[in-house]
C-alpha cells in the first residue's frame, strides 16, 4: 500500500525530525529511517511516504503545512539541513526533489524558528504575524467600484517590473527562518517596495512605511543586520534592496511627519 516508486533507484535516508505534540508541549528531534525513496519524488512526497508508513505502524504522522505543491501558495516551510526550504536556490520545499540528496544522507527537518512564529505542532508554525503586518498598511485603499480606467495612468515599465519583483513574495516565512535575527524585514520591505513603486501607492506611502515597520517590531521579529541570508533563502529571489527602500521610506516618512507635526501613523 505504501506509495513507493519502483525505479530500482531507491535511496535510503535517515530523517531527524522535530516532533512536538502541541503548542505547549515539549518537542524533540526523532530519528526515522526512510528506505526506498525515489529521486523523482518531491520532498513533501517523501514525507507523505514516511507518513503512510508511520500510520501503518499506528504512529501519528508528521504534521507539516502544505497546499498547492507548486511553489506559489507559501504554505510549506521547512528548515532542511539547516537551510530554509533546503539546499536548492529559488525553490520551496514542495518543489525540491529528492535528487538533490544522496543515498545514505542524513536529513534534519525542523520548523521555522522565531518568537513571532510559535510552533503549533511538529513542523507547523503560526505565521499570523504576517497577516497583521499587512493589516497595518500593506494595501492601497481603493474600495470596489471607485477606480478610473486602467490605462488612464501609464506606469513606466521599469516601475511596474520593480513592483512585480517585490510583489512576488509568497509569504512563506523563509526570510524570517533563515535570518540569524529572525527578522521580518524582507517580507515587510517587499510589500512596502511593491506598493511604493507604483503611482497608486504614493498617497499612503508614508503612513504605510511607519505603520508596517511598527507592526513588524510589535510582533517580536528581530532587526535587520544585513547578513543577506533572507535574500538567499527567498524562493522568489526578492532582493534585500527592498530593505534599503523600506529604510528610506521609513526615515523620509519620519522626517515628513516631523515637518507636518502630524505624527500618528505608527503609534
Amino acid at each position, binding site marked *: 500500500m505504501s506509495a513507493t516508486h519502483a525505479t530500482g533507484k531507491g535511496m535510503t535516508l535517515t530523517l*531527524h525530525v*522535530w516532533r512536538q505534540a502541541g503548542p505547549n508541549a515539549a518537542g524533540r*528531534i526523532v530519528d526515522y529511517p526512510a528506505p526506498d525513496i525515489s529521486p523523482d519524488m518531491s520532498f513533501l512526497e517523501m514525507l507523505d511516504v514516511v507518513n503512510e508508513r508511520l500510520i501503518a505502524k499506528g504512529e501519528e504522522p508528521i504534521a507539516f503545512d502544505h497546499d498547492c505543491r507548486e511553489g506559489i501558495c507559501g504554505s510549506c516551510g521547512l*528548515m532542511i*539541513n*539547516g*537551510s530554509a526550504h533546503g539546499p536548492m536556490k529559488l525553490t520551496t520545499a514542495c518543489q525540491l526533489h529528492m535528487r538533490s540528496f544522496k543515498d545514505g544522507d542524513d536529513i*534534519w527537518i*525542523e520548523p521555522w*524558528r*522565531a*518568537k*513571532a512564529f510559535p510552533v503549533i505542532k511538529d513542523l507547523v508554525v503560526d505565521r499570523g504575524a504576517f497577516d497583521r503586518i499587512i493589516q497595518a498598511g500593506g494595501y492601497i485603499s481603493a474600495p470596489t467600484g471607485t477606480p478610473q480606467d486602467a490605462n488612464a495612468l501609464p506606469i513606466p515599465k521599469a516601475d511596474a517590473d520593480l513592483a512585480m519583483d517585490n510583489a512576488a513574495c509568497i509569504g512563506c516565512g523563509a526570510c524570517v527562518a*533563515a535570518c*540569524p*535575527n*529572525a*527578522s521580518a*524585514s524582507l517580507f515587510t520591505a517587499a510589500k512596502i517596495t511593491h506598493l511604493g513603486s507604483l503611482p497608486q501607492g504614493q498617497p499612503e506611502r508614508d503612513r504605510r512605511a*511607519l505603520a508596517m*515597520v*511598527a507592526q*513588524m*517590531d510589535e510582533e*517580536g*521579529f*528581530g*532587526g*535587520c*543586520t*544585513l*547578513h*543577506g*541570508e533572507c*535574500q*538567499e*533563502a527567498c524562493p522568489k529571489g526578492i*532582493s*534585500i*534592496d527592498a*530593505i*534599503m*527602500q*523600506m*529604510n*528610506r521610506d*521609513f*526615515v523620509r516618512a*519620519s522626517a515628513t*511627519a*516631523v515637518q507636518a507635526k502630524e*505624527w500618528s501613523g*505608527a*503609534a
Partner: protein
Amino acid sequence: MSWLRTFWASTVGKKTVMAVTGIMLVGFVVAHMLGNLQMFIGAEAMNKYAALLKSTGELLWVARAGLLVAAALHITAAYQLTMINRAARPEGYAKQEPQVSTLASRTMRLGGVILAAFIIFHLGHFTTGTFHPAFSETGVYGNVILGLRSPLVAGFYVLAMAALGLHLFHGAWAGVRTLGLRKRSADPMYRRLSMGLAIVVWAGFTAIPVAVLLGILN
C-alpha cells in the same frame, strides 16, 4: 518629541542611528589613522601634529564630545538591537548552515565589544596616561614608542585593529545600505570599497605597533 521616541523605538530607527554614528566614527578612524602615520615621518612631525590638535582648545572638546555621543548612541543602539534580536528567536535550530552571511557580519557584536574595551584602554594609555608606564603630556612620539614596547600591549593593539578591520568591512557597507544611499545592489562595488577601506585602516593602524616591535620605529 514623540516622533523621536517612536523613531528610536523602532528597529529601523535604531539601525539608522547606528548607521549615521557608524559613518561618523569611520570618518574619525580614517583621520586618526592618517594622523598616526606621521609617526613614520619622525618625532618632530608627530609631536607638532599633536600640539596642533591640542591648540584648538574648545574645538577639540567639541569634537571629543561629538565622538563620545556618537559612540554612546552606537553602542546603546547595538546593545538594544542585540537584545531584541536574541529575543526574536528563543529556540534555535539543531542545525543551521549560514549560506551567505560573512564572518564579519556574524562577529559584529563580539568585534564591537573588543573595540569598546580597546577604546577604554587606549584612552587610558595615550590620552590620560593612566595605564602608561612613562607618560609625557607633550611627547606623543615617545609615549607611543614606550607604550608599544611591551609585546603584550602591542599584541592587544594588533588584535583590536584586526577586529576593527572586520567591523569596518561589514559596518561600512551595511551603514550606507541601511541609510538606503544606494538603491540597487546588483554590482558589488560597495562591497569592494568597504573591503578596501577595511584593509587600509587595518594596515595603517597595525603598521605602528608592528614597526615598534620590530625596532623600525624607536
